């Protein structure tokens, strides 16, 4: 029995082909006739009809005169509205914007510090930092001489487009500059929130393991570029490079991949070339 969703399909342990890799992540959708989730309260019916499975919360009160209002609006309208406004502002001012996503500690800030130090004579760069708490990352960025604004989300697990818009109003990135948005360290939630960026960069450090693109497909699927960081540590790890590339290919064949080490400098020239390319557009 599959240990992922309880179905009777076999899941291979030797993930060499794309299809066998997809076996790890294919068991995410309800099979016909199978209720995907249980309702919150015991005893609630989960009616299944045709292609839909309805999930119900607590029952309502006894019958009274009611009317139906059709709404048909995406609940992500609000974030998408702010993202669209951000995108228009960035495009109008020729600001190239990158949204950097990864788990905590993969090396985003270290890469930014290296980038800002290396390219500051050629390109004007600005940074929005996102963390639950502290100014630690903003202080590291500020030490390079770059303008930075720290957003502390408190309990929030991701940056959203409204926060980015507010931050830009305060930071005022210059026309024809590059704006880096270092998102909250999290391989899950930030995937769902368009910030209005031009390029979505997902970083994975090799110490995290080659299977992460399969385990966290949502975020890797949205990436324009995948940075594989901390490659200076490869001699000390049992990291399968081919498996990692295959995993990325399985969820996002269009993503550009750059192997790098932000601390040793390995692979950074390819990253700098990319940034110089988008800053000229």
């Amino acid at each position: 029995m599959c240990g992922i969703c309880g179905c009777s399909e076999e899941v291979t342990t030797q993930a060499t082909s794309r299809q066998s890799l997809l076996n790890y992540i294919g068991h995410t959708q309800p099979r016909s006739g199978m209720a995907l989730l249980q309702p919150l309260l015991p005893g609630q019916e989960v009616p299944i009809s045709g292609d839909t499975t309805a999930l119900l919360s607590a029952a309502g009160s006894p019958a009274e005169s009611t009317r139906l209002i059709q709404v048909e609006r995406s609940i992500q309208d609000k974030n998408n509205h702010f993202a669209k406004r951000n995108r228009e502002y960035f495009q109008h001012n020729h600001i190239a914007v990158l949204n950097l996503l990864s788990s905590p500690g993969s090396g985003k800030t270290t890469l930014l510090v290296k980038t800002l130090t290396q390219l500051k004579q050629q390109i004007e760069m600005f940074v929005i930092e996102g963390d639950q708490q502290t100014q630690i990352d903003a202080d590291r960025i500020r030490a390079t001489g770059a303008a930075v604004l720290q957003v502390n989300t408190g309990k929030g697990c991701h940056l959203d487009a409204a926060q980015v818009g507010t931050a830009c109003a305060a930071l005022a990135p210059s026309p024809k500059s590059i704006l880096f948005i270092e998102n909250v360290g999290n391989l899950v939630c930030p995937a769902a929130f368009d910030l209005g960026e031009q390029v979505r960069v997902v970083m994975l450090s090799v110490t995290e393991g080659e299977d992460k693109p399969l385990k966290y497909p949502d975020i890797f699927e949205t990436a324009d570029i995948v940075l594989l960081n901390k490659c200076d540590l490869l001699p000390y790890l049992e990291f399968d490079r081919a498996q990692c590339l295959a995993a990325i290919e399985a969820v996002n064949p269009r993503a550009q991949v750059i192997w790098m080490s932000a601390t040793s400098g390995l692979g950074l020239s390819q990253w700098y070339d990319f940034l110089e390319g988008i800053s000229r557009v």
Partner: protein
Amino acid sequence: MHELSLCRDLVAMVAEVAAAENATKVKTISLELGPFAHIEPNSILFCFDAVAEGTLAAGAKLEIIRTPARALCPKCRHQQMLTERFQSCELCDYFPIELVNGNEFVLKSLEVC
């Protein structure tokens, strides 16, 4: 979890629509959720009551209707239903194929009085 902030947006939208319709109470909220939205429906159910407290949506029944996913092959233009997240075209085996719908999270309707 990000469903909390989405729940806040949902409750704000419900309150806005209900107020515009001069409703005094929201009885049922019907949502459509595609299988590839980055949203866990049980988390929405979990957050909803807490977020809705003190608003017109308080006490409403939340109905989440799971909708099917459809995709279009950019190579052979074949439209197909999707049962797996990262599947290749069922006709020509091309990958990746483009999602037509399946990642939506929509406030479909309200039942109010």
